């Protein structure tokens, strides 16, 4: 019963705006259309088209520009203010508290993925940081020691999109979500259910539940953005097609997150072939997820 209420609570707040947004999306999709696939006779172009896996590219590019606008007007200035106004120790505490509140959910995902060791890491981190942090204010479990960076247990993230991937779900087409940014069909579905998976959401009263989750998302967003300002500026300055670069970065980053850092030893199995000399057949990237 409480659960049902929570579901309703969560969606009522966004329902009216969601309707509007949906209408907007459909209109835009009709206006901008889908990416045109290359002729089937051009095998290489077809392979590249499939590798991009971005049939909604025109619409995605539209939202990419929209998000850049939002970033420029709101997220980036807020993040810069946050970075300028709060000392580093305090900002680290903010991140640490938010990470700690996500950790029970990460623990559930570790279990769902059959990662016993990582589940025990998450469990240990949550108890240690909650009691000795205290309340997650300091990431004491990570034991940051510049002399010995391998000591302690560093934070690791998990989410429903990753669990679905481990269970064998395909990522589906690439999506650029308004506000939320790069995603794909699988990760979008994962994001929708992630709210119900984190046990921490159930300890607050129903009426505050979605607000609690939203606040964490917003704070995490600002903190993360404040740590990536220069990096993203550099990527943007260096790339010719920023949209395509971000798409590639998102795919690779997700693939490495899903593999929990145990990805293929050589990410470019086909690269050596090309480095040798030109061979007749082009092989496209091995990275799909």
């Amino acid at each position, binding site marked *: 019963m409480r659960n049902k209420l929570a579901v309703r609570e969560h969606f009522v707040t966004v329902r009216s705006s969601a309707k509007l947004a949906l209408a907007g999306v459909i209109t835009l999709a009709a206006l901008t259309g889908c990416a045109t696939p290359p002729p089937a006779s051009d095998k*290489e172009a077809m392979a*590249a088209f499939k590798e991009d896996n971005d049939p909604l590219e025109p619409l995605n590019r539209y939202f990419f520009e929209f998000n850049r606008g939002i970033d420029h007007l709101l997220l980036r200035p807020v993040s810069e203010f946050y970075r300028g106004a709060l000392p*580093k120790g305090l900002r680290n505490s903010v991140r640490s508290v938010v990470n700690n509140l996500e950790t029970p959910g990460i623990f559930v995902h570790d279990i769902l993925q059959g990662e016993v060791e990582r589940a025990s890491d998450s469990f240990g981190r949550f108890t240690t940081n909650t009691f000795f942090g205290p309340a997650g204010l300091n990431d004491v479990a990570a034991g*940051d020691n*510049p002399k010995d*960076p391998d000591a302690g247990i560093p934070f690791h993230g998990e989410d429903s999109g990753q669990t679905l991937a481990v269970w064998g779900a395909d990522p589906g087409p690439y999506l650029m979500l308004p506000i939320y940014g790069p995603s794909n069909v699988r990760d979008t579905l994962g994001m929708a259910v992630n709210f119900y998976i984190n046990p921490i959401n159930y300890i607050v009263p129903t009426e505050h539940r979605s607000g609690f989750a939203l606040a964490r998302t917003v704070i995490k967003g600002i903190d993360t953005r404040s740590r990536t300002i*220069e990096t993203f500026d*550099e990527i943007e*300055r*260096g*790339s*010719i*097609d920023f*949209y*395509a*670069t971000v*798409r*590639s*970065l998102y795919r*690779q*980053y997700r*693939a*490495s*997150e899903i*593999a929990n*850092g145990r*990805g293929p*030893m*050589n*990410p*470019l199995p086909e*690269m*050596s072939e*090309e*480095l*040798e*000399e*030109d061979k007749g057949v*082009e092989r496209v*990237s091995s*990275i799909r997820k």
Partner: protein
Amino acid sequence: MLRRKFLGLCALTLVVTASVTVRGAVAQSQNRPLLPGEARKQVKFLGDAAVAMLSDQKLTQQEKNRRFRHLLNQSFALRGIARFALGRYWRRANFAQRRRYLKLFEDYIVNSYAARFSNYSGESFMVINESIDERGRAIVKTRIQRPGGEPVEVIWYLRERLGAVRIVDVMLEGISLSLTQRSDFAAAVRTAGGDMDAFLDTLEAKVRKIKGVTK
């Protein structure tokens, strides 16, 4: 007198080219697996040279760029990476386009990184380990420590070709720089309607723009 010098130079070039080609043909068929420690040494050399160059306050930006270009050519399989980054469009490009592209690619990399030289704030560089895969290529793990910042793990991929051990890719947080470059260029060539000259003009404009930021 001048003419004779010129002829001598031509002859020398011919001899050098011929010997490189012969060596290349031999190396290509064998592609020697790397020995333990070889790649590690190379990466360590690059890291130490880069830190020395960056922390030298007396060097001008221009001199830093020159040294960086030298280091880049010395340590990276730059032409191979450039070719990989262009993907299927490399084969369609004609000789002149390829030459122009290779030149631009080097300028593009040098200038992209040159913009970061002024940001150097005492980062230190440490090799963690090295492993060699079943095809004889080496993977070297390193850690870059910023003073007061979180350490960044960087993984370097090396292989031997034509008698030289060179870096073919760099990975940061699971992201391959070569692969990301390739996605960027592929999209850019497609936007140019597959027209190689149009793409090269765009690339040239980009290089000029990045250069403007550095100066």
